[in-house]
């Protein structure tokens, strides 16, 4: 241990503003980069899921429509 007390550790022998600002900016940047990557991934996954769900629904609708038109065609054929 290079320091005798916690206060001395914080004071950094009078160099506290320099040491802590350099370390603080570095640490903040690393954390920010990770948070950004996580948010990016979540957003992408959410958008992708929404798209897949929407397209599935559309696909199902189209299937129903096709069924209906087939029935209608059948009716028309009947009459």
């Amino acid at each position, binding site marked *: 241990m290079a320091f005798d007390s916690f206060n001395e550790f914080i004071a950094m022998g009078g160099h506290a503003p320099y040491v802590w600002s350099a370390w603080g900016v570095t640490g903040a940047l690393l954390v920010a980069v990770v948070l950004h990557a996580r948010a990016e991934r979540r957003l992408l996954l959410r958008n992708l*899921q929404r798209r897949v769900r929407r397209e599935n629904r559309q696909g199902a609708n189209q299937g129903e429509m096709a069924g209906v038109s087939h029935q209608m065609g059948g009716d028309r054929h009947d009459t």
Partner: protein
Amino acid sequence: MGMIWSFIHKLGSPKWFYGISARLMPWFWVAAVALILVGSAWGLAFAPADYQQGNSFRIIYVHVPAAFLAQSIFVSMAVAGLVYMVWKIKVADMAAAMMAPLGAAMTFVSLFSGAVWGVPTWGTWWMWDARLTSMLILLFLYLGVIALRGAFTSRDSASRAASVLAMVGVINIPIIKYSVDWWYTLHQPATFTITGRAAMPMEMWAPLLIMVLGFYSFFIALTLMRTRSEILRRESNKRWVRDLAGETR
């Protein structure tokens, strides 16, 4: 030969990369967090103060790893660009695109910590020190690559242009570095360089080594993570990505 080609082909498949990176990534995250935490505690609290610079010397433990990483990321970016240009491996370009902002951020960190370190050492925020000047030029190189990639509307052109520029840049980096060193010694021969001393005792360089390894792990883990995101973005029309979205609901 056939095996090599099939391996390269496999490596180039985003699907394969997505799977293997999921297994590798946790290890790099664990290593990054553990190494950075241990290195920080050791460097901040346990390493002895420098006999000349006192405790301001502890800035070295963020300044040097960031500077190393800033340079290594540019080289990795150029290598990825070369791989993309030669073998048309899309994942390499995705990784290169994701590396650039982190490289620029690391360059900024090393510049900022260098400037802050300058205050107790030189009595000024900025000095045209050889290392800081090279770092500033590196920052401009990064900004150029990022700006060029952003300027194209076609993704393929953007990828190839950024690859070429990264390769041109990486050939120039050593030339720039040596000419700046030469220029510096010519103009300011007797100035004290902040990190230019050999023979550090083990208690000082061991935490530095740990921090450097931690930063490298961080870079690998983050690049894997963001490349996976980029795969989702660019391959969102592929069947397997759709299936994936269904599974992770």
